[in-house]
């Protein structure tokens, strides 16, 4: 059994524990009834996604300073997992919004900024695929990773400052009942562990892909042929 198999097993087990708490331990919400149970994973996924993008920011800054291929691989891995988690957040949020707000989507500050976040990092992944692999892709992506993270709080706050008519924060404004709080905290911890596991696995995949000699680079129209990247 490799390290990754054990990690994955632990992550799956932990998510099952979280699921058991969500469905069997946490009390049903008085107003929102069953759909409220989406809340636990929805918010946890959002927090885990933010953590991933913070890792992208840190790794991007580290890459620009040191040009370390490991920092670049970490940024790649965390960006992919972050986009997946943001997708989960948006998807579960829509399922949650339909029964509670009556619509899948509103132009709420939080929804809009999350969508922008998703678009920025989806663009990051696309840039990684289209830029010439190696130093150029890593540098360009690092710049996008830094600007993307700077942009998100701005989008978030700039929209809240004005569109105050949006429905109040969905997250805890008053203290949750202890059972709900415990369920939420456990789910969040499990989701963060899952995210960490996914990043670790993806990091390993990126390492292996870097080690495989890339096929002869195809020169796109307009781009000058370049020297092959030195082996790392």
């Amino acid at each position, binding site marked *: 059994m490799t390290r990754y198999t054990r990690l994955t097993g632990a992550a799956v087990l932990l998510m099952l524990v979280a699921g058991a708490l969500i469905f069997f331990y946490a009390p049903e919400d008085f107003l929102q009834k069953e759909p409220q149970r989406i809340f636990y994973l929805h918010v946890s996924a959002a927090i885990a996604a933010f953590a991933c993008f913070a890792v992208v920011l840190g790794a991007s800054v580290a890459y*620009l300073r040191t040009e370390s291929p490991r920092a670049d691989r970490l940024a790649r891995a965390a960006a992919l997992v972050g986009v997946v988690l943001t997708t989960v957040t948006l998807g579960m949020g829509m399922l949650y919004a339909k029964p509670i707000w009556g619509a899948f989507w509103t132009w709420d500050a939080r929804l809009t900024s999350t969508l*922008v976040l998703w*678009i*920025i990092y*989806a*663009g990051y992944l*696309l*840039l990684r695929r*289209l*830029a*010439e692999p190696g130093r*150029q892709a890593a*540098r*360009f992506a*690092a*710049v*996008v990773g*830094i*600007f*993307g993270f*700077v*942009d998100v709080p*701005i*989008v978030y706050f*700039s*929209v809240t*400052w*004005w569109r105050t008519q949006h429905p109040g924060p969905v997250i805890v404004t008053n203290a949750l009942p202890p059972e709900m709080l415990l369920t939420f905290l456990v789910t969040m911890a499990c989701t963060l562990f899952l995210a960490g596991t996914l990043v670790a696995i993806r990091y390993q995949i990126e390492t292996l892909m870097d080690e495989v000699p890339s096929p002869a680079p195809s020169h*796109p129209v*307009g*781009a*000058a042929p370049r020297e092959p990247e030195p082996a790392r």
Partner: protein
Amino acid sequence: MNRSVAVAVAVARKDLTSEWRTRELVPALGQFVVLALVIANFGFQIDSQNAPVIAPGVLWLALVFAGLVAFGRAFAAEREQASLEAMLLTPAPAAAIFAGKAMAAALLLIACEAVLLPALALMFGTPLNVPLVAAVLIATVGMAALGCLFAAMVARVRSREVLLPLLTLPLWIPFIVAGGQAVQVAMGATGNYNQAVALLIDFDILFVVLTSLAARFVLDD
């Protein structure tokens, strides 16, 4: 410092001279924004009642897409003639070269705004006043810095036409949020104009500083 400014001005002058001699981009951009107004007319069924409500949105849509075209072209000539490499071989700092390119692109976009804003006022019956022009010009500064940074980046990447809007538009959203508010107020809506413009200036400072720090990594190879 003085030398950097001189380099930036020289690069900007080179770009503007080349545009003046060919007259390629600005007339095309002018036609583009007028076409955008025509399309908005058919898309929205504009009449005297709803025109003032729709006009700010039309302004930003036209401006944003004209901006993408302008910045996408900023590095086209350099790419076609591989002249960027020649510039980078000189001892001039990369940030200064980048600032020059951004200044020239911003001035071309301002030329396009000089068509867009009067056309909007004429065809939509909205006011054309100093607060409106000021808000758009202030937003142009930061948008130019960001747009040029990503234009420099995608100039060396496959599918650059697709990638430039994908990278640039999400990062322009702060300018559209604050600029949209400022333009709405300037056109007669209620709201806080000063706060919106102050925020635009904050974004300008933030992104000009960040792009000048990042320019080295995007231009150098």
